[in-house]
């Protein structure tokens, strides 16, 4: 019987499948469809210090084998997340959850992480320094090794829970940034966030997204994500959560071979709400086909 268990920053996951932040809300909608406790864990909607509406609509556009989004971190703010969303979430999900955090200043990151660090249902803090859809913040922290390390150091000083830094692919050398985060004390890194992209409406001759640009995700980006996971896995020793266009059990195995300890599923949840369940169910057969007994045995196997 195939062994899907992996260990992510000291916490064992029943399997490596983690719905990615922003594609799974707080889990309720999916809990109506299947028991989400079959998941390794999930990363809930990105949380900021203050409530945010996010960007004006349209926020979504389609591309070949992918989609653009420019939601812009819509969320009720950390206090409401803790007082309203987490208690509701606890009713449908009984494992440790991953708290995804964004900010517009060092203080923001530290404050929001501290608040969520105090929630016992939170297992990991995924610090998003790579959101391409907000201005004066988000990605700007993730595009230089210095600022990435700075955020990491500040957050690490403030919290006890493992800190996973979510990296931007919109950089010249992602491995260098991964190393900077590791050096600053990160317990893990997750990548890739979306690729900055756009579409133009031929009828209006204006960008399709009100925000002009958005983040590309979906199978289209998988080979770029895989390359970056591979490069980072060669550069750092801390665990890597791989994501970017993963849509099948085979993709999960490919990510693991590239160096991913766990794998986040993003856009695919929006197209097939059962994607994570289907992938978890398909993994044992896929592992058998490729003669893999323990998934943890092949992490980084292609390096």
């Amino acid at each position, binding site marked *: 019987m195939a062994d899907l268990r992996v260990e992510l920053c000291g916490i064992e996951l029943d399997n490596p499948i983690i719905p990615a932040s*922003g*594609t*799974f*809300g707080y889990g309720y*909608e*999916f809990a*109506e*469809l299947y028991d989400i406790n079959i998941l390794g864990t999930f990363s809930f*909607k990105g949380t900021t210090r203050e409530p945010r*509406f*996010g960007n*004006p*609509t*349209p*926020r*979504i*556009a*389609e*591309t*070949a*084998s*992918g*989609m653009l*989004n420019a*939601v812009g971190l*819509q969320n009720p703010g950390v206090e409401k997340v803790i007082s309203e969303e987490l208690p509701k979430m606890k009713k449908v999900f009984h494992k440790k959850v991953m708290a995804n955090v964004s900010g517009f200043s060092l203080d923001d990151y530290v404050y929001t992480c501290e608040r969520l660090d105090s929630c016992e249902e939170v297992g990991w803090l995924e610090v998003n320094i790579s959101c391409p859809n907000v201005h004066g913040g988000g990605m700007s922290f993730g595009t230089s090794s210095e600022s990435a390390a700075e955020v990491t150091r500040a957050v690490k000083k403030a919290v006890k829970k493992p800190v996973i830094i979510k990296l931007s692919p919109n950089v010249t050398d992602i491995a260098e940034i991964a190393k900077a985060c590791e050096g600053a004390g990160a317990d893990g890194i997750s990548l890739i966030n979306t690729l900055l992209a756009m579409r133009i409406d031929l009828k209006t001759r204006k960008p399709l997204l009100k925000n002009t640009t958005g983040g590309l995700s*979906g*199978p289209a980006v998988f080979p770029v994500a895989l390359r970056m996971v591979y490069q980072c896995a060669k550069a750092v020793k801390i665990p890597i959560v791989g994501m970017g266009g993963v849509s099948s059990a085979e993709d999960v195995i490919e990510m693991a071979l590239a160096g991913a300890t766990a794998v986040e599923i993003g*856009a695919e*949840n*929006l*197209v*097939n*709400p*059962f994607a994570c369940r289907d992938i978890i169910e398909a993994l044992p057969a896929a592992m058998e086909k490729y003669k893999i007994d323990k998934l943890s045995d092949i992490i980084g196997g292609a390096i």
Partner: protein
Amino acid sequence: MKQGFFEIIENLPLAEKVYKILLSGDCSAITAPGQFVNIKLDGLYLRRPISVCDLDGDRLTLIYKVVGKGTEELSKLKSGRLDVLSGLGNGYDIEKSGDSPLLIGGGVGVPPLYLLAKRLVASGKKASVILGFNTKSEIFYEDEFKAIGCKTEVTTVDGSYGKNGFVTAALPEEYTHVYTCGPEPMLRAVYGAIKTSGQFSFEERMGCGFGACMGCTCETVAGYKRICRDGPVLFKEEIKWRT
């Protein structure tokens, strides 16, 4: 919400660029008129949301206009199965109708009003209907609404058929509640013209269609709402028009 496969029974042109597709499958998740389904099409990444026009046992009728790649692909399918998420959105609340509700549809906003009209008539309400189109060649379902006993008035922007002008030109004296669906400019006009309460169905580009991605959020008096899940129907009092 349910995910399932629907058989294509027929898929025929109904008016200029407008098609009517009849599907057969498990419709049990569809609980109210004004809800929509979200359809996966080969070669296209995102599903395509289409509002429910009619429902009869396992028979589901959708009417859609060819406006892009997705609807164009759909219009070519004459048989086979479709991967469909059904029972999406809140739909219209028929309890609020009063005795003589007024239904106002514009263009491809007309279809969801048909199932609504049937339900209202079935519950003994005197539903009257205004159908607005740009021009005669785009008109559909006038007879269908009349056949179920609705007083039905058609307006065309170019005056090529029925009353000349916008739907608001055909507002009757008396009605108890308004149900409407159509392009935003029409909704705004209706909002300004009606004297009663009402329910407005909105359109927005969606990611998932079931509330996960926050791709279609709008601001309302009652806070942020996801058009795909908290909508597409909003009560008149809730609406906050974007400026």
